[in-house]
């Protein structure tokens, strides 16, 4: 059996040899180069564009302005399964190029040139005349009367107001003896920072357009390119090679429609759009900044009587994934710590900023920031131990979400907590670090998290798989669920080998998705790959096994129920005798003059279940108060992702999520200029994602409770690791200093502000810092 084993990644060898081909490596050098002209105002209208000078630059093939793109269609960009119900379709508010400018960095023209220097020169030579409107950058400001409106269909800029009502909040708070704890918590705009920027190229063959794209969602891209160009979806072919990370940014359709349109405009000539890093920051997608307001009414025994959450989610200029992010976060609120009386109001609001879309965690990192900072505050206010307080209130075993039917089958939270507490010596350190005084103080902090795998029942969950047997008994496996660095192909290989009974080396997962040949699948998102693909893999492998054994029955005259496939051999189960190898069977099947069969199987699973995936982080910090700096000393994540298909790869994936969480908690924030709306730190120097020197050793631990609904006992792990890290760090800093920092990240600017407010610089005692 291979599931559960630390099998080496199937793509690792090519990757360490440097021969793995990514989009740019595959593009022919004859490609025209596309560059996009982005708006230099935050809100307004393009009145005119003078391209005459740009057109005269040698090497320029063509300039295409927003006025040239009037024949294209509005399209949605979210990497969601399409809905045939118009009520549930994503908002189609994007144009290939736009005359209406809604953020600083909007796409208003495209330059096509023979080389990148000419393209860059042409960009600088285009003169744009705008009619400028006032703009709004703050999410709550944007909801006020009289402020600039981004989309006329959405008054007060509210894309959606999501509500949850449970019990009777107003009545419940009248209970005598309750303590009210209230706080505002805020997360920043951050960006995915996959190291390969978004890139795609397009070329026509006959009447069809082929787009090769660094995407997580090839089949969705095909649909959206069709929608944008107003052509049949079958006229579009999308190919996804290996990609250099995605993290949700590439779960949006980004510039594939533009690239395809330019290709079509240029008679089908090969065109390539390689987005520079600065534009990746500003004009791709970002994570929603969310400001949350939580009020909890707590009984003296530490239970909740009533709770309320208001969340303001900064959508930026276009709908993209829209309210579904805030909705997912809102949905977590009444579940992580269930309470009889709950009110949730989540507003997703347009502002004149970069567009927010999916990013690792999909609303949960923001929700956990608010909820787990608040939980710490409540425990502190009630004078209760933070661990005991959480154990008392956390979702109990047997909890069932009436909407998704998700169930907490195991005592996951307590098991994860126990493991994390033991690994970090939390209880001892928690006591030891109380009441410190000096300049440098230590603290230890904790956060749980709630997550659920996949998108059912909000959206379709489906996966298709094809297996084709080769003459040597090996097989190709194809799925629409994509390898984006997480190791999906390796997990699929292990699963297939186990179900079919063949050696790992006999399974060739076709990594590249090509919508012309790959079975339909919606791609990599929602931590769904192993969970969702698992159903299709098991079902298809069983189907293929049945066909193989049926053929073996023909050849061996043994009844199929006495046959099995083990280690790539057909065996008779009654005496375990090897009757033939898979290679012998496959060769015979293909070339038989009497009964030639091309043994293959293809099937689709529609999945109508979903699975919780929970865990926690504990972080230990050292705070240098005068320096306003936090040093992370130790960090542990514990996850229950069900059965681990590949523990080593699971661990690696957790490390990556922890790293992203560390950046979220300590350093990352995309800044926008108040005066112009321009992003200020749109590069990897000024945007501070953590480096090799900003981490301690990262520790990933697991609790493996097999998920009963799952084809392989497994469930989501891609996004969860990023969810609990930042609040754990914040709670550790709170423990160390007594200063609650409610706005992420805890960078020096923020700590300086909070330490100053709390007067901590003057209170560091003898020998300490005292100039303030």
């Amino acid at each position, binding site marked *: 059996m291979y599931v559960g084993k630390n099998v080496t990644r199937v793509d690792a060898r090519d990757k*360490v*040899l440097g021969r793995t081909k990514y989009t740019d490596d595959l593009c022919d050098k004859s490609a025209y180069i596309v560059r996009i002209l982005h708006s230099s105002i935050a809100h307004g209208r393009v009145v005119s564009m003078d391209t005459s000078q740009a057109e005269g630059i040698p090497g320029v093939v063509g300039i295409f302005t927003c006025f040239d793109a009037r024949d294209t269609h509005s399209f949605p960009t979210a990497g969601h399964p399409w809905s045939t119900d118009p009520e549930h379709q994503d908002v189609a508010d994007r144009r290939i190029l736009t005359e209406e400018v809604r953020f600083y960095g909007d796409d208003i023209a495209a330059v096509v040139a023979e080389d990148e220097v000419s393209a860059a020169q042409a960009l600088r030579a285009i003169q744009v005349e705008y009619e400028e409107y006032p703009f709004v950058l703050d999410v709550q400001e944007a909801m006020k009367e009289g402020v600039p409106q981004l989309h006329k269909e959405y008054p007060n800029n509210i894309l959606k107001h999501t509500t949850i009502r449970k019990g009777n909040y107003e009545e419940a708070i009248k209970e005598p003896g309750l303590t009210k704890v209230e706080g505002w918590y805020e997360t920043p705009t951050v960006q995915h920072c996959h190291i390969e920027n978004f890139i795609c190229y397009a070329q026509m063959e006959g009447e069809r357009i082929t787009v090769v794209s660094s995407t997580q969602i090839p089949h969705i891209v095909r649909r959206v390119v069709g929608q944008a160009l107003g052509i049949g979806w079958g006229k579009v072919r999308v190919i996804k090679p290996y*990609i250099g990370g995605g993290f949700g940014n590439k779960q949006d359709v980004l510039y594939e429609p533009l690239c395809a349109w330019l290709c079509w405009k240029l008679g089908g000539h090969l065109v390539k759009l390689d987005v520079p890093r600065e534009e990746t920051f500003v004009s791709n997608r970002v994570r929603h900044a969310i400001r949350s307001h939580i009020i909890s009414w707590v009984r003296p025994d530490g239970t909740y009587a009533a709770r309320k959450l208001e969340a303001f989610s900064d959508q930026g200029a276009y709908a993209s994934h829209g309210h579904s992010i805030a909705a997912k976060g809102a949905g977590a609120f009444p579940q992580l710590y269930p309470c009889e009386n709950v009110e949730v109001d989540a507003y997703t609001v347009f502002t004149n900023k970069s567009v927010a879309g999916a990013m690792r965690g999909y609303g949960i990192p923001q929700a956990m920031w608010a909820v787990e900072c608040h939980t710490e505050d409540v425990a502190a206010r009630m004078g209760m131990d933070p661990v005991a307080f959480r154990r008392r209130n956390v979702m109990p075993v047997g909890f069932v979400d009436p909407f998704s039917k998700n169930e907490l089958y195991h005592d996951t939270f307590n098991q994860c907590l126990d493991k994390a507490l033991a690994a970090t010596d939390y209880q001892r350190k928690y006591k030891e670090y109380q009441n410190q005084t000096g300049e440098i103080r230590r603290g230890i902090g904790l956060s749980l998290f709630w997550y659920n795998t996949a998108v059912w029942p909000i959206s379709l969950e489906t996966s298709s798989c094809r297996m084709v047997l080769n003459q040597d008994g090996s097989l190709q496996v194809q799925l629409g669920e994509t390898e984006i660095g997480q190791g999906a192909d390796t997990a699929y290989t292990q699963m297939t080998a186990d179900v079919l009974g063949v050696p790992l080396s006999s399974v060739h997962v076709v990594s590249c998705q090509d919508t012309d040949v790959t079975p339909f699948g919606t791609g990599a998102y929602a931590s769904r790959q192993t969970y969702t693909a698992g159903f299709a893999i098991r079902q298809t492998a069983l189907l293929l096994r049945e066909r193989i054994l049926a053929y073996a029955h023909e050849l061996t005259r043994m009844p199929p129920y006495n046959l099995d496939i083990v280690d790539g051999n057909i065996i008779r189960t009654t005496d375990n005798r090897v009757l033939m190898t898979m290679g012998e069977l496959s060769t015979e099947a293909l070339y038989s003059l009497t009964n030639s069969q091309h043994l293959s199987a293809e099937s689709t699973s529609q999945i109508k279940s979903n699975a919780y995936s929970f865990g926690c982080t504990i972080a230990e910090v050292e705070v240098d108060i005068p320096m306003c700096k936090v040093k992370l000393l130790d960090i542990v994540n514990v996850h229950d992702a069900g059965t681990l298909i590949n523990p080593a790869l699971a661990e690696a994936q957790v490390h990556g999520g922890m790293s992203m969480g560390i950046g979220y908690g300590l350093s990352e924030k995309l800044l926008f200029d108040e005066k112009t709306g321009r992003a200020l730190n749109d590069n990897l120097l000024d945007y501070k994602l953590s480096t090799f020197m900003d981490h301690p050793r990262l520790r990933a631990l697991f609790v493996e409770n097999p998920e009963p609904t799952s084809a392989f006992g497994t469930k989501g792990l891609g996004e969860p690791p990023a969810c609990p890290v930042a609040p754990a760090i914040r709670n550790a800093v709170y423990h160390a200093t007594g200063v609650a920092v409610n706005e992420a990240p805890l960078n020096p600017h923020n700590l300086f502000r909070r330490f100053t407010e709390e007067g901590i610089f003057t209170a560091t005692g003898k020998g300490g810092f005292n100039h303030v």
Partner: protein
Amino acid sequence: MSRQYKLVSCTINGKPVEKMVDVRASLTDMLRDDYRLTSVKKGCEVGECGACNVIINGECFNSCIYLAVWAQGKEILTLEGLAGPNGELSDIQQAFMDEAAVQCGFCSPGFIMSAVEILEEKRELSDEDIRKRMSGHLCRCTGYENIFRAVKKTMLKRLGKEKEAEAVTHCTLKV
């Protein structure tokens, strides 16, 4: 405007080569476009991500901000030059595989070349120094943890410290 070219002769992955190169080209451009060495990746083009890192005369450089014409007379090593003639992996490549230090793989070539520079010094670096020497690369998948382990293990093995190398374990086992 007439284009300006220069004949650039250098050694790439042990092989003497020469080509007329546009003086405007970066070394990344030359290696990727003229020599099709596509392990040299473009992640930022301003020397911040390290994906285009190659070794020139024994030292690591971000080839995106290195003019191709400066390669004249230099010895350049890219990831493609590490494996043996029959595709045998070098120890550091094997370690990246064994330690699950590769995920999307886009930053891996740059990281491996920095590791090679360290390993060629044949001395034992502290953990802090390993981190510092590898810090010219950004990775969003791995959190650097397994890369750290791959480099440290290989360094110790090359110094004959097999036992110490084996002791470099997953932090998971620290419990």
